[in-house]
């Protein structure tokens, strides 16, 4: 497989970043609504969706750093568009993008099976948990709650991030718009 990016791939990557920035912002609204009703665990339940764009991009484009760059781009666009977290989001994108990239890199960007994508979502969740540990001083929380948060977030990363990212990509593939991408050559 050729590891160099083509123009088609960079344009797709940019477009995926833009659309997912949009979706992530909608998800922030949903999270705020759910949290008002159910409390802090809502964040961990919903968290995985914020990785789905990275996994969507990696699964379709299949080039080194597609996942990482999609996360960075989406966080940059959210800052300009009005995510209340502000510029710190660049750091968030960096951490989560790096997390989802690790399992993909471990397979030298050659394997995009369901277990690998689930692993990408899980590692992104673990990375974000460590980052949030410092950002939101998790050490003040009870150990039992922390374990529950971590387990829920990893599950969310696998399902809403890894699996949903793949399912969305497969649904979009059926419309035939992904011609010329690596995924169409792979199968």
């Amino acid at each position, binding site marked *: 497989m050729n590891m160099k990016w083509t123009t088609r791939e960079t344009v797709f990557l940019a477009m995926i970043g*833009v659309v997912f920035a949009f979706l992530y912002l909608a998800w*922030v609204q949903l999270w705020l609504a759910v949290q008002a009703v159910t409390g802090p665990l809502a964040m961990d339940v919903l968290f995985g969706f914020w990785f789905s764009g990275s996994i969507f991009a990696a699964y379709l484009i299949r080039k080194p750093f597609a996942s990482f760059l999609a996360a960075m781009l989406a966080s940059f666009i959210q800052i300009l568009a009005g995510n209340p977290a502000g510029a710190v989001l660049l750091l968030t994108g960096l951490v989560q993008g790096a997390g989802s990239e690790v399992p993909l890199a471990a397979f030298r960007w050659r394997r995009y099976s369901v277990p690998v994508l689930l692993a990408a979502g899980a590692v992104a969740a673990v990375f974000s948990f460590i980052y949030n540990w410092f950002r939101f001083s998790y050490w003040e929380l009870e150990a039992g709650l922390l374990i529950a948060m971590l387990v829920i977030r990893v599950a969310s990363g696998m399902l809403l991030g890894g699996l949903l990212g793949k399912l969305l990509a497969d649904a979009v593939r059926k419309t035939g718009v992904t011609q*010329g991408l690596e995924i169409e050559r792979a199968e």
Partner: protein
Amino acid sequence: MNPPALFETYERPSPLSGVNPAIKLATSIVVMLAASVVFDLQSLSGIFALGLVVAVAGGRVPLRVIARGLVPFALFGFGYFWMNAVLPREAGTVLFEIGPLAVVREGALNGVRFAVRALCFGIYSIVFVATTDPTDLARSINQNLRVPARFTYSALAAYRYLPTLKSELHQIRAAHRLRGLGEGDGVRGKVVQIYRYTIPLLAASLRRAGRVADSMETRGLGREPRTDFRAVRVRTRDWLYAAGLLAAVAAILLAAAGAGVLELWRGRLWE
């Protein structure tokens, strides 16, 4: 799901529109980072007021455009205010009650700070977005920061698509209504709604991405070596802008520290 109002470049020459885009962007980001680590009302208001002055005096951005640009940030800010006022992390003095909801003083104060913080991010986004030609930004990132042209022009193409994304969403929504699909209420309704819009939105966007890529390729983009029609330089006045703005923010923080009100974002990044 309401699409945020964004990326409406206001085209009018101003002192700020002449500043090197990469440096202007980096400066805005550094100020936003500063705003995200302080958490007292005085410093945050000062940083916000400074941004307002820079946007109006330096960027000649009309107040109407600023107000409209701040709407999404204000909405988020209000959400934060409300959440903190009614559901504070710690118990406190009850200010007043609305039905079953008690508005807590400490929470309300925190909420105000979150709201002003959100406005800070908003105004420095406007300072950058409303005074920058996206094409100049792409050129500057390519020439000054040495990011490959293929990436910067792809990003530019996607960025140009944003306003269309909004109308695309309206179209999908209208098409769904026409077929009798209503918009649900509550959390469940919101999830169903996001799902129902996502796939057509992604498909339409990626279809466009394919066409854009074809047209970029037929025009020879991505061939090396490439030459630039317009050179974007970094000049002394660009550094002066960055140094001036950062010095002003530093002055605000020092003044707050001197008055004994400076507070860092408690227990979030440090402590």
